[in-house]
């Protein structure tokens, strides 16, 4: 598997600054992965969780329950831009699947069908 996701030999806990986690990469735009994007773990991710670095491992563990990018950022105490890079890495290796927000209607909002489901769900609470 990709060696940059492999064990780093550290004894757990973050001892490097966040920009080192991402090798200086950051994304300031959410266009390709909005903060509410959902993430879930794949079978491959489940199997390889033990071999991952701590930050990646935490994300894969969080992804056992469908979870959003912004929740991952919170759980890891890193900026959303950093979480975005780490999630991209994991998705690129097939550990995670990203469920992007729904395609939008011409007016820029969700579809009538989705809004209807949302309304039903809220009314049932």
């Amino acid at each position, binding site marked *: 598997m990709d060696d940059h996701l492999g064990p780093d030999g550290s004894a757990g806990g973050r001892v490097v600054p966040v*920009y080192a986690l991402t090798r200086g990469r950051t994304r*300031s*735009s959410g266009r390709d992965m*909005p*903060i509410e994007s959902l993430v879930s773990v794949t079978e491959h991710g489940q199997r390889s969780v033990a071999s991952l670095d701590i930050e990646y491992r935490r994300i894969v563990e969080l992804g056992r329950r469908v979870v959003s990018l912004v929740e991952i950022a919170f759980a890891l105490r890193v900026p959303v*831009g950093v979480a975005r890079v780490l999630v991209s890495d994991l998705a690129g290796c097939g550990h995670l699947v*990203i469920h992007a*927000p729904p395609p939008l209607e011409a007016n820029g909002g*969700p579809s009538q069908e989705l809004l*209807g489901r949302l309304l039903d769900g809220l009314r049932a609470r």
Partner: protein
Amino acid sequence: MDYAPAEATTGTGTLPPTPLKILIAGGFGVGKTTMVHTLSEIPPLNTEQEMTELSEGVDDLSAVPDKRTTTVAMDFGRLTVDDSLILYLFGTPGQSRFWFMWDELAAGAVGAVVLVDLRRVDDCFAAIDYFENRGLPFVIAINDFPGTERFDARVVRDALVLKPEVPLMWTDARDGRSGLAALISLVEHALARVAA
């Protein structure tokens, strides 16, 4: 990057996990954080969102050593709507210097609840203007602070220069049922606009 069809991993159900979002906007101290936390099924979460004013894509920080970053606290909450639909609530950052963040938050949103404190009406105009200009559905929820003078809805509408179709209601940001009613009103309003 994989944007796989979701049936591969959902396990239960046949519909893909789908996120939706609603913004909770309004002036500083109007009750946005309270409303988000009251409605959320997860513990109060508040993330430091680091944003940069340099734009798109993957940047190499070493190439722009003086890149300015802004860290801003942002409230969010989560409501599981059904098997596959998850609603996120985002409290919008109050200060206008964080407006560049609003565009990302507003993109694709169902709409916004604009909380208003009638003792400080001016604080909500920026949010109303923003959503009007953007064409994003919004409702006005007057946060009923104890001791606030009661005004007739028509007087409030005039004061806020609201279009007739914009729903207006009184709410209590500390009360879950009341907050939920505001969300329902917003979704009804958004649906009416899509259907129109």
